[in-house]
């Protein structure tokens, strides 16, 4: 139930957005986040964007995955 999935914002209409979740287009609410734009990734849970996903942090994490000891 706490499952939240990354989604890409396709279109913003006020407090609502159309997002792409692995090819599935859904309408979600942006009530709980600020400063998002078309093209940003957000974490979606039960129809609400819970957080904007940070590309910078994601990239850093991936770099850490590649590090050797």
């Amino acid at each position, binding site marked *: *139930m*706490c*499952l*939240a999935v990354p989604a890409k914002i396709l279109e913003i209409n006020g407090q609502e957005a159309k997002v792409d979740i692995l090819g599935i287009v859904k309408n979600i609410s942006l009530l709980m986040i600020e400063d998002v734009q078309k093209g940003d990734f957000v974490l979606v849970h039960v*129809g609400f964007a*819970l957080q904007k996903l940070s*590309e910078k942090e994601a990239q850093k994490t991936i770099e850490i995955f590649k590090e050797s000891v």
Partner: protein
Amino acid sequence: MDKPNFFNDFKNASYAQNILSKIRKFQNEITIMEFCGGHTHTIFKYGIREILLQNVKMRSGPGCPVCVTSNEDLAKAFVLAKTPNVILTTYGDMLSVPNEFGTLEKLKAEGFDIRTVYSTLDALKIAENNPNKKIVFFAVGFETTAPATAASILKAKEKNLKNYFVSSVLKFTIPVTIALLKSGEVKIDAVLGPGHVSTVIGSEIWNFFPQNYKIPCVISGFEPLDILQSVFLILKQIAENRCEVENEYKRAVLPQGNKIALKILNDVFEPASAFWRGFGEIPESGMKIKKEFSEFDADLVFNTKIKINEKNTACRCGEVLRGLIEPHECKIFGNPCTPENPFGPCMVSSEGSCSAFYKFNKNTILT
């Protein structure tokens, strides 16, 4: 720098091998508890338990909201569904959870109007489209899910909707983690912190693990690589004699969480005592609708009181949730209890340990 791919980069098998080789350099044997059903699901789906078995034992805790819902609370949903003129709405997982009255699915087949919704906003739409009916949303979940329920109540107030109600069995996660640690029933060396709960409540709030219980905690994302990396970070902390909260899931979790979501949650709900399956009553662990929104509180508007007979069933979900037994230690695991024929909630929800254990236990795709 390439743009990250939020889907594939976190499942990359060669990175997994790299992290695993780092994990295998540690010799100490430890037990890590995951407090989130989403982690349980990933751990079983990708065979992470088996991969780690050499030195790390993973234990599941009370991290599945559907599973920890007590029989009394579940019974309320049955009473509400049978109330004349009511349309009961809830998230999909709840429909197959069995109790002494059967399942909500069976009630629905008998003709009662029970609808699953993806979002509370869908429940609001049903209310707007059916002005002569009373729409009750049966709200199950933790801090991740609660803001969405709170938002629906705020929206209903804004729209002056008089036929939308919420029955809240929502729960705060921190009190149950403390109850589990205090019980001393399971020995835990470290904790895999719940990523999506922390998206809302933040990473700093978990400082009580190292400070009060001397237990390291790493907040983890949900992809298989996130979990492996978090296990590595835990082993590293222990080897270096450190004990702190680290955040592996920085792309989604901020130290203070999501302030807007928290405000919405706290505007509508206040802590109250709640019953948990396996644990009983835990003070301040439930989310009760505040007085100023009592007109939306289904538990006040309708009579949801019901006496239930706590029959002694063979189901051992309570012990599974407390981390005392593994699903297969339950005598009826797999026969007759299966996801198609569940005897307890842990076999129903995809985040339940029994269901994850049953579906994925033979997968070890990362080795």
